[in-house]
């Protein structure tokens, strides 16, 4: 019992002592992911939109994005390094590729699930194809697309750690150092930060997803947080 209390303190000590390095690594990690997401989401949403016009193309593109996702990340880095070099660019390209399946598929599903009645109402009001997309389809599909981005970000947080091996930086650096020097505190503290990061992203996205749904006039399961947010907004 005493020794476990002692261990717990060792982890806290480590986190306090190395708070600078942990903070820098966490920010680096977020930066890599934000960069990849900023590139990947427009591509994925664009592709998801394009394939709504052709069912066979849709099947093929979603299948390909799925195959992409099963390729192990270290193998993918290995295949990309000869072309993009050692460092962040190869990692970001890999992260962009891994983001495609959830984003493309959710965009496709979200756009396809729009109630035809809503589209006809828009047409009857004299909207053009582009206006329909911007003012009817996208707002309705947005929560579904957001759910895809949310899944993607959680995946990327994990894969980006492996990117540290080819010099992309981030929290993976601390994991690799922890392995090299067999420093348990370092591994445990970094793991906790990574997990908290993923949970925080997951939570933030699910809240904003619900807000978008509310905005569309959909029913949302009301939780304490949602009630609070609604009160703040109104």
């Amino acid at each position, binding site marked *: 019992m005493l020794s476990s209390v002692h261990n717990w303190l060792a982890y806290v000590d480590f986190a306090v002592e190395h708070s600078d390095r942990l903070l820098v690594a966490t920010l680096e990690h977020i930066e890599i992911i934000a960069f990849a997401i900023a590139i990947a989401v427009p591509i994925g949403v664009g592709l998801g939109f394009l394939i709504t016009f052709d069912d066979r193309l849709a099947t093929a593109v979603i299948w390909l994005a799925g195959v992409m996702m099963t390729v192990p990340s270290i193998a993918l880095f290995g295949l990309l390094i000869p*072309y993009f070099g050692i460092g962040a660019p190869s990692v970001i390209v890999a992260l962009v590729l891994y983001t495609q399946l959830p984003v493309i598929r959710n965009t496709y599903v979200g756009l396809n699930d729009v109630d035809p009645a809503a589209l006809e109402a828009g047409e009857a009001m004299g909207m053009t194809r582009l206006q329909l997309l911007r003012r009817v389809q996208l707002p309705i599909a947005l929560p579904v697309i957001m759910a895809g981005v949310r899944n993607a970000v959680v995946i990327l947080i994990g894969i980006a750690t492996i990117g540290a091996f080819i010099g992309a930086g981030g929290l993976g650096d601390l*994991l690799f150092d922890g392995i090299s020097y067999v420093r348990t505190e370092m591994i445990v503290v970094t793991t906790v930060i990574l997990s908290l990061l993923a949970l925080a992203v997951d939570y933030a996205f699910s809240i904003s997803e619900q807000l978008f749904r509310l905005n569309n006039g959909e029913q949302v399961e009301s939780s304490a947080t949602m009630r609070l947010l609604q009160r703040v907004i109104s």
Partner: protein
Amino acid sequence: MSDFVEGLIYLVENSDEVLYHFRGHLELVVVAELAALAFAIPASILAVRHDRIKKVVLGLGNVGQTIPTLAILALALPLLGLGFWPSILGLWAYAILPIIVNTVKGIENVDEEMVEAARGMGMTDWEILRSIQLPLALPVIFAGVRTSIVLVIGTAYLAMFIGGPGLGVMVVGGIQAYDWAQVIAGAIPGALLAIGADLSLSRIERYLGGDGGIDDTTVAA
């Protein structure tokens, strides 16, 4: 493109080396996956029967899947040291998560009325589990197993970092030595193994009545 061609040439010329690491990779995957199946399915069947345990198990499963694969392997190091068995522990710990989550959810989602009807016919809990819940949950359970297998094939590449065998030895060693042909020769067999396993398992899943889609929260390693 020339790097890729050089990689293919390396693959053919050093087929003994590639085969050796491929075999190491398969050993990791098979041992970890069998151990995961042996633990996860009975554990989730037990968990489903108690509401409180079920909630804890599902929560742990969902939170566990947010932990990066590299971190899980790193955590095995202080526990068991370097080598084959620490790698197995790390891979096993990650492999059980999708199986547990899917088994619990699959059994959960079986129509309550079916279970009631079976109970009305005088079936015991055990009989209901064996002849109603498990068969109906099978496609969902199998989807979890498939995710788990594909995930372990990818994660086994990282075993090298804690002294394990596998194709990671070629890729990581190649990156350290700037030998791109070796990197590509090590990357191709694992990528093909993961893609092949996923495609054939999704076919079986569809045969069992599932949709064979990809569960995108967990399959990337």
